[in-house]
């Protein structure tokens, strides 16, 4: 199976009502362009999995009603304070949650990546997690009968979305090393990656980021500024002013609906998206995926 090079709109074909959708990112490298597109398509009732401590990515999916439930270890806007949509919806009893510790969540994804049903994890025993997660169990270590240990079920998301630095023309990806993206790609059935740049395989091989081979990738979206307003290290920083606008807007349901209308649903916000799948090699102008394929090898499109 080759990697599809698609537009933001075309990337939505893998995401249907009710799927389990995994995301990565924090106040940097959140897949904001893909999340905005998801909101525009009016897909709802998704079960969200956060691949690490989450931030505006999760808060926006909650505040826009895309998320029906969310599996996470922590949700904050980092230096910008509480994630207010998450906080409000939870306090009002309008959000279904599945809470994990960061290491046990990563272990559950590891189990998903290996195709095994559950995994033992350290810690947890004696904490409130064992009360709120009826699917976390305690077993006796079969190799040391003196030891009790928690087991958690594998996480196998239907679809993962994340933002990365580069993809090459074969669909190999250079990702941010901080956010468990390779593990997430290995655990998920379909993987959609937005990237700042499409480059040659030679150029990708020199990238210092985490290389994720195309075997794990379903589709690549060329989406410059795709992490905005979160930061993309080496490309652009966080837009602090916009984040403060977001924080103010997320203080109430009506003001947050206005935020979504203005910054995500409006014609002005939509107008910046390319309408067709564009595979753009850096410094070589706009070309379609097929044109690039002729020069650099096969790309499956659409």
């Amino acid at each position, binding site marked *: 199976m080759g990697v599809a090079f698609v537009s933001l709109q075309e990337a939505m074909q893998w995401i249907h009502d009710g799927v389990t959708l995994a995301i990565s990112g924090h106040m940097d490298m959140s897949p904001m362009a893909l999340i905005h597109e998801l909101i525009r398509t009016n897909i709802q009732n998704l079960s969200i999995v956060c691949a690490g401590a989450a931030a505006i990515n999760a808060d926006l999916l909650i505040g826009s009603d895309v998320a029906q439930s969310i599996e996470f270890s922590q949700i*904050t806007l980092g230096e910008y304070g509480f994630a207010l949509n998450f906080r409000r919806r939870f306090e009002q009893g309008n959000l279904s949650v599945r809470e994990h510790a960061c*290491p046990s969540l990563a272990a559950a994804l590891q189990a998903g990546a290996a195709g095994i049903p559950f995994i033992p994890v350290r810690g947890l025993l004696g904490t409130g997690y064992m009360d709120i997660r009826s699917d976390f169990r305690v077993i006796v270590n079969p190799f040391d009968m003196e030891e009790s240990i928690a087991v958690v079920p594998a996480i196998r998301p239907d679809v993962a979305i994340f933002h990365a630095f580069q993809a090459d023309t074969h669909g190999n990806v250079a990702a941010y090393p901080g956010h468990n993206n390779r*593990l997430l790609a290995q655990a998920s059935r379909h993987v959609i990656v937005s990237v700042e740049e499409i480059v040659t395989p030679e150029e990708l091989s020199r990238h210092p980021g985490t290389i994720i081979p195309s075997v794990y990738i379903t589709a690549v979206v060329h989406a410059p500024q795709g992490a905005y307003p979160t930061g993309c290290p080496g490309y652009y920083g966080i837009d602090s002013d916009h984040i403060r606008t977001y924080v103010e807007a997320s203080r109430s349901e009506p003001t947050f609906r206005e935020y979504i209308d203005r910054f995500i649903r409006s014609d002005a916000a939509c107008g910046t998206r390319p309408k067709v799948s564009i595979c753009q090699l850096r410094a070589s102008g706009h070309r379609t995926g097929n044109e690039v394929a002729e020069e650099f090898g096969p790309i499956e499109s659409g």
Partner: protein
Amino acid sequence: MSLYSSYSEEEWLICLLSRQLKDHEVVAVGNNSPIPAAASLLARALHARQTEVYILGQPDWPFEGTKEFFDWMQRGTVDVFFLSGAQIDRSGNINLHVIGNYEAPKVRLPGGAGSAVVYFMCKRILLFKTDHTRKGFPEKLDFVTSVARSSQDVFRRGQLEGVFTPLGILKPQDEDHLLRLTAVAPGVTASEVQAQTGFDLGIERGDYLELQPPTSLELNTLRSAVAKELQSIYPEFAKQWNHSA
């Protein structure tokens, strides 16, 4: 009056935490923890130059994601980890989940992050709290995010070292493992600390020290070299020292 005779509560807490770190230790700092991050960098700049410091979010991160970092930590490689709690009880158990009933809380907090595993797996756990109030140190937690001790059948290497706040230090005692006042911050009395704490600190025993204020060397290093290092990880937090040094 010298520049270094006045300092903020945050600066005090950073210096206090920094002094707890020993040379050659491996120190790790988790999410949303600018004060421990600053403390670790300060210790490495001053008395613990061979200390290895790993701060989640640092630009030169040697691990693939947080997954590899947590795997590495669970093998027993990390000597010191900092944790906090919206509530901390007399045993040193922490709550990072909710204030009020979990099902319908008054305040939903961000969540436990790694604490329900980290507390068990790193050798020395330093709890810190940026404010010291009765509400923050209640008799009973509204939710138990992580625990200071475990039963014999549970693997555990993590031990609570103490709780560090702007008012002083609480440490678990050998006889009952409960927190007692062991040191007060400069200019703070034991009865003031007790008045701000929802459980008994045993101050009638009188065995607590008075801590030394931050030195000019600590403050100068924090406000210059450490502030500069923090800019790439906690830019908003580091702004408080923009006009220093």
